[in-house]
């Protein structure tokens, strides 16, 4: 049997795959349960509803990206890896087509706890002085992704300018 936290992360992985296929609005708990290979009851044990699940997915993505950036050997590499992850993300790519309002919500500053988490993670990794600019740079790519070459070039430029 899988542990609770393992099934939780399986559900979130399943949710991300489903969002990449149909977007967030069209996705549903039944499909996500099937993709995660857990029962619907298990899904509802972890998440009260789809909204709670989607917020948890965003949270786990922020934490995943923060870990990735922390493990990078150099700031320019951290920036490049973050840019690559965001610009190539299939779930975000689908949502740009199907859920533009959700995308707009992601990139708009608010006092939502997830916004604070993103902000604090950026501060921790790149320092308070530079975090505003770097967070804006990354968020810009949620709406308008960069090619690998652009991401490399801009990551190097920002790192040499600020870090």
């Amino acid at each position, binding site marked *: 049997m899988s542990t609770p936290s393992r099934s939780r992360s399986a559900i979130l992985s399943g949710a991300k795959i489903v969002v990449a296929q149909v977007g967030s609005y069209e996705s549903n708990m039944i499909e996500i349960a099937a993709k995660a290979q857990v029962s619907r009851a298990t899904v509802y044990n972890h998440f009260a509803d789809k909204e709670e699940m989607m917020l948890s997915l965003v949270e786990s993505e922020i934490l995943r990206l923060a870990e990735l950036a922390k493990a990078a050997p150099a700031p320019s590499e951290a920036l490049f890896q973050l840019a690559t992850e965001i610009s190539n993300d299939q779930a975000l790519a689908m949502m740009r087509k199907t859920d533009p309002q959700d995308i707009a919500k992601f990139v*708009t500053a608010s006092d939502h706890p997830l916004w604070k988490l993103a902000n604090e993670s950026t501060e921790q990794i790149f320092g308070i002085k530079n975090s*505003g*600019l770097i967070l*804006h*740079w990354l968020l810009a790519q949620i*709406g308008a992704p960069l090619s690998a070459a*652009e991401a490399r070039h801009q990551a190097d430029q920002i790192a040499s*300018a600020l870090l």
Partner: protein
Amino acid sequence: MSLLRTHIGSTLRAQRVAQGRTLRDVAKSARVSLGYLSEVERGQKEASSELLNSICTALELQLSTVITEVALELTASAAPQLTVVEDAA
């Protein structure tokens, strides 16, 4: 420290002027009001990345490219100050 939005605004304004385009023209294709665009350019309004993205699209630019330019500008303007501080110390 100067605000990020001031730098983004002035970069957008410089780009618009370099393209020989009017506030009215860019505001229309970005689907924002003329007054709003003007405030963003002067750094008086904190625009969301979504609106900044549509202004950039209207200018045929990428927002992340604009922000990278701002980063380069910030260092260019900060460097002389650093020298002064070191001299004084």
